[in-house]
């Protein structure tokens, strides 16, 4: 705990210091451009082995992207033109409209929930604070299955509707529409925003709000003029996560018969047409880059930081007054739709499965397979992210930021593309058709989650600590392991947990890369659900939810204590 106290004291000062040093970096290379290469080299040489590891990692991360690019060159002008003319506009509209709407609504829900839970006198908000984060552990494709059971064309509600006399007309719900997929994706992605914004809200200092209020602003004005600017980076980061998720989701979208770039690519590959798939992928990658570019711009514009002076004061909770019941009602509705209902449905079908002997040795083998690949991916990500993050923060240069950017390349790519890229690269090696390829795919896809978590922790630690350690004669890698690693351990664990949770839920890359006879729980859910064998799909779905929930609880506790 000593460590944390120390951190808080120095926090503001260090953040400012960081900003300063970055500005200096920004000026120097351009002013002395003839010096910059030598400068770069000298700086990077210090980092030596770390740089090497980071570079190799980054290259590995970029391999699928390269594969897609290279292959798309061979698609030929004719195919490009045909797709640009016919299919791409439609897919673009499908993908963009869904992404935009889901992101917008999920951000609204996430910020509202975060505010209610963190900043008001809501009864039981400690409990709510982790309950409303729970949908994070329900993969959208599992949510889609649950809602097909409830609302689908052969679902429970339809039966009720048609039997009862007082419900008028035809059955009004159709899950196989834009609104069906919109609803499912929103309900199971808003926690990304909720968690990030909650964390930012916990760090907010009340001094600003007091000043604002003393100037006569009401609660609403304070929220928009004081809180919002400080929250903007957090909201932006959450929104980007959601947008990237929607763009790359395969399972829920395919199950609800919607068509975006990602599902189109999957089907195109199934139809023996890799080249068209690579063309579509290139467009999708461009789309992703645009999303990231928007985020970077927003980030730059919102250059607010909390100043150094004064101690941290936790703001008083806002009294909800007469709105209390409306707020509780909102939370309960979200809880029922995004947590209670899907989980109850899955428990019901798991019971049926259990009675019919679905929990046999095969089931446990699938579970073990899932644990193995996800655990390994989490460990590897924790290790590999560290040098990249450390270099970027402590040895900022064109090279280290390039490495960082390369490492993001697999993040937004749909699993299908990552999988095909991996097959292409590892086809001739003994690794091919071993479960390690799934692990590699997970690392490529989810390493940035570990990086972000570590980066957040690292940014709170003064570079002076490093400098002190180095001045005592330790090389950078030693500083990283002996000094930095123990201090940012919570961030590393949190990153590992995120990667683990994402990995255990991952579907498309696992589907394509699994070696013969090596199914994971995610694959089983997909297979059984597409056959409408819900009693076989529910037990692994429930188990995934339970396993994913364990680290989440831990993470939230951790953040709560800080």
């Amino acid at each position, binding site marked *: 705990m000593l460590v944390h106290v120390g951190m808080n004291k120095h926090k503001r000062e260090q953040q400012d210091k960081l900003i300063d040093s970055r500005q200096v970096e920004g000026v120097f290379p351009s002013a002395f451009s003839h010096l910059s290469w030598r400068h770069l080299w000298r700086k990077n040489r210090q980092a030596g082995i770390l740089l090497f590891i980071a570079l190799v990692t980054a290259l590995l991360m970029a391999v699928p992207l390269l594969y897609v690019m290279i292959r798309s060159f061979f698609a030929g002008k004719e195919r490009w033109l045909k797709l640009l003319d016919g299919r791409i506009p439609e897919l673009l509209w499908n993908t963009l409209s869904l992404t935009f709407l889901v992101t917008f609504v999920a951000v609204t829900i996430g910020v509202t929930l975060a505010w209610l839970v963190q900043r008001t006198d809501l009864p039981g908000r400690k409990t709510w604070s982790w309950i409303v984060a729970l949908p994070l552990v329900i993969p959208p494709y599992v949510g889609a299955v649950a809602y097909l059971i409830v609302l689908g064309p052969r679902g429970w509600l339809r039966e009720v509707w048609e039997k009862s006399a007082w419900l008028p007309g035809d059955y009004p719900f159709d899950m196989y529409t834009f609104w069906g997929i919109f609803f499912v994706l929103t309900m199971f992605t808003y926690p990304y925003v909720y968690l990030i914004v909650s964390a930012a809200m916990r760090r907010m200092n009340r001094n600003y709000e007091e000043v604002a209020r003393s100037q006569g602003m009401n609660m609403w004005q304070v929220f928009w003029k004081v809180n919002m600017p400080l929250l903007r980076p957090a909201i932006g980061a959450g929104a980007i996560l959601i947008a990237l998720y929607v763009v790359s989701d395969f399972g829920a979208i395919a199950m609800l018969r919607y*068509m975006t770039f990602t599902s189109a690519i999957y089907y195109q590959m199934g139809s023996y047409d890799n080249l068209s798939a690579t063309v579509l992928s290139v467009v999708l990658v461009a789309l992703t880059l645009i999303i990231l570019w928007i985020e970077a711009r927003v980030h730059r514009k919102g250059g607010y930081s909390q100043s150094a002076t004064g101690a941290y004061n936790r703001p008083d909770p806002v009294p909800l007054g007469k709105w209390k019941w409306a707020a509780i009602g909102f939370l309960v509705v979200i809880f029922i739709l995004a947590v209670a209902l899907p989980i109850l449905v899955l428990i019901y079908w798991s019971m049926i499965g259990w009675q019919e002997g679905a929990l046999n040795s095969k089931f446990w083998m699938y579970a073990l397979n899932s644990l193995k690949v996800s655990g390994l991916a989490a460990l590897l990500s924790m290790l590999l992210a560290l040098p990249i993050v450390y270099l970027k923060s402590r040895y900022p240069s064109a090279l280290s930021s390039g490495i960082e950017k390369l490492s993001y390349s697999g993040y937004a790519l749909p699993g299908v593309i990552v999988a095909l890229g991996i097959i*292409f690269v590892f086809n001739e090696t003994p690794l091919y058709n071993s479960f390690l390829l799934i692990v590699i795919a997970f690392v490529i896809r989810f390493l940035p989650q570990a990086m972000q978590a570590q980066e957040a922790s690292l940014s709170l630690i003064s570079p002076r600590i490093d400098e002190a350690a180095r001045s005592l004669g330790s090389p950078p890698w030693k500083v990283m392991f002996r000094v930095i690693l123990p201090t940012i351990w919570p961030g590393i664990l949190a990153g590992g947990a995120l990667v683990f949770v994402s990995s255990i839920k991952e579907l498309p890359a696992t589907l394509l890369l699994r070696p013969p*006879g090596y199914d994971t729980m995610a694959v089983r859910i997909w297979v059984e659900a597409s056959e409408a064998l819900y009693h076989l799909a529910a037990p692994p779905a429930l188990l995934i939810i339970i396993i994913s929930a364990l680290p989440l609880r831990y993470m939230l506790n951790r953040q709560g204590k800080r």
Partner: protein
Amino acid sequence: MKKTLRYTIIALSVALLLLIAACSGDNDNANQKDGTDSGEKVKNAGELVVYSSRNEKFMEPLLDKFKEDTGIEVKLLSGKDEIINKIKEEGENAHADILISNDIGALEHLRQNGFLQGYDAEGIESIEEKYRAEDNSWYGLSARTRVFMYNKDEITEDEMPKTMAELADDKWKDTFAITRGGNGSMIAHVSALRNEWGDDETLEWLTKVKENAAVITDGHGDIRRAVGSGEVKFGLVNNYYYHQQLNEPTDNNVGVIYPDQDEKDMGAFVNAAGVGFINHAPHEENAKAFLDWIMLPENQREFSYASMEVPINPSVEAVDEAKKISDYKVSDMPLRDLGDVWEDTRALIEKSGLDLEIGS
């Protein structure tokens, strides 16, 4: 706090090392298994890798029986048509021994591009020649006929369309379900239509059918459930889906139409599901053992039975509900030809926009 931290780090590193060690151990095994020198053949005896684009539920009883009979461990990779793509990607570095496909077109397409190898399995003569490859690198085992399956609560037999061509009529707008054009059975069917009608007419038909369809699904399982529950009036499926739906405890009031049965009509289109022997198969001997084993009449029966398909070998008895192939008029396009026109058909389907289309 600090101590616990250090111990956690140490424990985790040890765990990681152990895991890595375990994995590299696995790799060595994999290498040995994949090794092709004869010295390692003994170790190979225990394994057969099967890629399958066929529903896994239909395959499990069959493969379990094979394991029981021979002691050879079967590793099954069950997917959809993307499995064909995987075989092509693997090429000379093949990892699979046997492909089980729902579509002869795909098998012949692979054979023409050098991804299959010939083998005369024992008893291959029991399969009619038009249902196997020139070099016997693949052969069909069960027949699947394209039919209309309808919900008797929603529509009567008299009202139902009787030919494929009728689907393009506006009369049927928003009443039926089909699979997307990327589905293996659909591709083969379109090849047959092209053979009968020519490209222009087929393209027009595809475009109209895409507009008229109420629901376009990825696979046929969804269609049979949609017809059974009355979500749509009828659907274009393979005949055994009708037999399957009949055997459901609920939603089973369904009927079947074998289309194009008139004198002047082309007859129903029959495709076959079968097995292929993959070129450069890592466990060649086991693959041959499998190909011989599956020719035994009881195993041919097992192959067709789980899915309620009709065995191609006439001496193997069919499920009770199933019509024999000889009971109805069948289109005369040789299945083998499906492989030649594979790419062209796909291009035509893509032109119509039905290849990826999914939705309501």
